[in-house]
């Protein structure tokens, strides 16, 4: 197997008959709990029904109408915690949940394969002459852009990176979400007339004031940044990597075998840590360990991600924290760790870890990958002079309006750690909600004037 093969989509698609058989199992519930459990409210029974009648275009449109990133979400949603977890077929009296995620992928795959290039599956309203700026071309921004374009707005998306997709394009490992899926969803949005300004940073290339002056509304969907510093000795050694950047590299640069046969430690146990660890095994690392200062019970990674990592041969070490990165000749050679124990619960109810005095030990390593969270885009808060709390902009519930008139904020940019999961699907819904809020605000202003 080549490295490229290791980064091909892992989960196989449903075979055509398998999809129809599975779709036929769906009960077509009324007021279905799967729909209620979907943050974007996709009419799941309806799209599944359409698979049974070979109405795959209709099925895909049902999905994409509610969720412009329905093809990505089919792959990255924690379905067992959302739609599939709510399926009435779970439970002792029934059978097992419908594989809604895979069916969604089946329908949207059909749409991808059968849509002519640059043809939009949805139509736009007549142009209404209003202009909207969106900062960030990730899931939240794309979603807002799609729905505003459908309403007739002229939408411009400003993106610091060279292409659109945000987390989907740069942060989700290829073997879970292939690049062409993201590209197709972006193409669908471009085909509605949405304009993209790539490699454009707000505050550097365009000022916040310019955006405000030239648009009727601004939506900030800038996501998060890279991993913050561990603030321990040795962090600048060669071989200390940022997990977000590391995953990004596997998606944007040719795959290299620089990890072949190496020993890797990933610090942190969220989904990004898992991604960094599994990318490492797939790049040929000899030994990959995830190091976490709490226990498996406090780990924030999804259960299926955890299982996936274990199947990939990733080792987990609980209750350990890094104290010093060891190096020779400027390169990582090891990591000094200290054992931890759990103390009192913190404000989230998770027991706080504390060091066990004198329990230091070292591991021999070639790479240390940091995955302890992501930094925030605080410069935007300053640039737009937004009211905020600990670097998180304050927004009005439901409309995502910030303290500034005509400025809205959505997605990971406003994500409060631990409050809800930072899911692609919730970012998409926030984009939709913000689009409605912008539209409501602009049309009511029009009525007033």
């Amino acid at each position, binding site marked *: 197997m080549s490295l490229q093969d290791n980064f091909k989509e892992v989960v196989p698609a449903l075979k055509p008959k398998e999809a*129809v058989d599975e779709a036929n199992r769906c*009960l077509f*519930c*009324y007021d*279905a*709990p799967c729909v209620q459990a979907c943050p974007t409210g996709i009419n799941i029974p309806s799209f599944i029904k359409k698979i049974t009648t070979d109405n795959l275009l209709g099925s895909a449109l049902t999905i994409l109408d509610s969720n412009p990133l329905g093809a990505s979400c089919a792959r990255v949603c924690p379905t067992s915690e959302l739609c599939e977890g709510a399926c*009435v*077929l779970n439970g002792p*009296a*029934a059978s097992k949940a419908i594989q809604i995620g895979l069916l969604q992928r089946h329908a949207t795959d059909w749409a991808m394969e059968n849509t002519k290039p640059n043809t939009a599956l949805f139509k736009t309203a007549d142009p209404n002459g209003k202009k909207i700026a969106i900062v960030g071309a990730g899931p939240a921004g794309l979603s807002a852009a799609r729905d505003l374009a459908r309403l007739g707005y002229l939408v411009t998306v400003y993106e610091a990176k060279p292409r659109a997709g945000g987390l989907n394009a740069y942060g989700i490992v290829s073997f879970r979400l292939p690049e062409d899926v993201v590209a197709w969803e972006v193409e669908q949005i471009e085909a509605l007339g949405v304009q993209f300004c790539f490699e454009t940073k707000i505050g550097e290339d365009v000022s916040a004031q310019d955006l405000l002056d030239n648009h009727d509304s601004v939506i900030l969907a800038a996501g998060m940044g890279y991993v913050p510093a561990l603030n321990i000795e040795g962090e600048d050694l060669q071989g200390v990597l940022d997990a977000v950047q590391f995953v990004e590299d596997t998606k944007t640069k040719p795959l290299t075998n620089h990890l072949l046969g190496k020993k890797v430690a990933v610090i942190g146990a969220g989904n990004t840590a898992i991604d960094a660890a599994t990318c490492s095994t797939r790049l040929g690392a000899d030994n990959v360990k995830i190091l976490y200062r709490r226990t498996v019970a406090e780990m924030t990674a999804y259960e299926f991600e955890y299982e996936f990592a274990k199947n990939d041969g990733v080792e987990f070490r609980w209750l350990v924290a890094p104290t010093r990165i060891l190096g020779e000749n400027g390169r990582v050679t090891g990591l000094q760790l200290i054992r931890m124990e759990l103390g009192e619960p913190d404000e989230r109810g998770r027991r706080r870890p504390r060091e066990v005095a004198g329990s230091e030990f070292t591991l021999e390593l070639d790479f240390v990958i940091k995955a302890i969270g992501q930094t925030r885009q605080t410069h935007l808060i300053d640039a737009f002079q937004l009211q905020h709390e600990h670097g998180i902009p304050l927004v009005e519930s439901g409309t995502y309006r910030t303290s500034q008139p005509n400025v809205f904020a959505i997605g990971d940019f406003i994500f409060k750690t631990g409050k809800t999961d930072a899911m692609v699907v919730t970012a998409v819904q926030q984009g939709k909600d913000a689009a409605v809020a912008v539209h409501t605000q602009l049309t009511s202003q029009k009525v007033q004037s």
Partner: protein
Amino acid sequence: MADLRIKFAGIESPNPFWLASAPPTNSGYQVQRAFEAGWGGVVWKTLGEPVLNVSSRYAAIHRGGQRVLGFNNIELISDRPLEDNLREIAETKKRFPHNTLIVSLMVQPKREAWHEIVKAVEAVGVDGLELNFGCPHGMAERGMGSASGQQPDMVRQQTEWVKEVAQTPVIVKLTPNITDIRFTARAARQGGADAVSMINTINSLMGVDLDSWLPYPHVDGKGAHGGYCGPAVKPIALNMVAECARDSRIALPISGMGGISNWQDAVEFLLMGAGSLQVCTAAMHHGFRIVEDMKDGLNHYLDQKGLPSVMDLVGKSVATYSDWGDLNLNYKVVARINNDTCINCNKCYISCEDTSHQCIDRVREPDTGRELLVVREDDCVGCNLCSIVCPVDGTIQMVEIPTEKQPQSWNQLQSGVK
């Protein structure tokens, strides 16, 4: 182990499962394979003047992932020379003397033609004859099959002609393509038939190709109506069997067929008066081996019911099949939902709400917050719809509600008025 042997109109068979006259019984090779697989008998594919067939000739409907719910064909009677068939019938009977071998016949409605073929077939040693007055396609245009079968007088007349020379029991096979099958069944009896069999296939157009816009099946750009059969026709067949079974003016053994696919279907036909069972589509769908479960299942069922013989089932439910006017108007059932096994799919709710009597409420349980589905029994008419659409067996029960009133039927009510 119960006794599966039957005696039907004087014909003995090791079990009630016969292959119907159709493509599966077209040759000695096939029939011998069937006997080896365990079929009690066969009705050999209809003999007559050999015909020319078309290509293609079958079509089916599939629904909800289940294939061949319904099936139809535009195939005609045997297209093999009569001498070949007769030779193979003789060979087969010799090899399988204890299996039932009945031969289906169809000729022009002429006395000599019937005499001639009956004599020729009986000469090779068969257990009985079945007169095909049912085939709805191809032969009907030539005055045979259902063209005869739709005219009770012709059925009676031709049965008489056959009985003039027949030495073996004569079964008259009836067409369902008629307003009231009892009239032709009575005509068969008047003609001296020893038994009737039903149903032959129903006129049908299976579907239209969405791309070519041609009917299914089609032959070089055109289609024609074909004979419908398979699981989908079972209720129609069962009704006709039951109607004939309870008609004192027919009072003949009935060989039942039409959608019988498993032992449960078989039991239902037996209970409603069938004394032997004929199967075709299920065998065409799955091969002859299905008979193993049919016999096995029937056997276990009989044992479970403590019945020594399959003959003990025949006709046991006929008396329960009546006219609407005899039904008790004062009997009441209501639906009751078991919330322990309810999975909250709300299918009962929406079907009742949209299409029935709006008597199911969605109620939140105060303690758990869980939504419960509750029937307002005063408003429930006991229509069964909710229990039919419920995907979890036994979750919605139809429960009898005792009433003070004496049983009274519409007919009783009317006689009181007069």
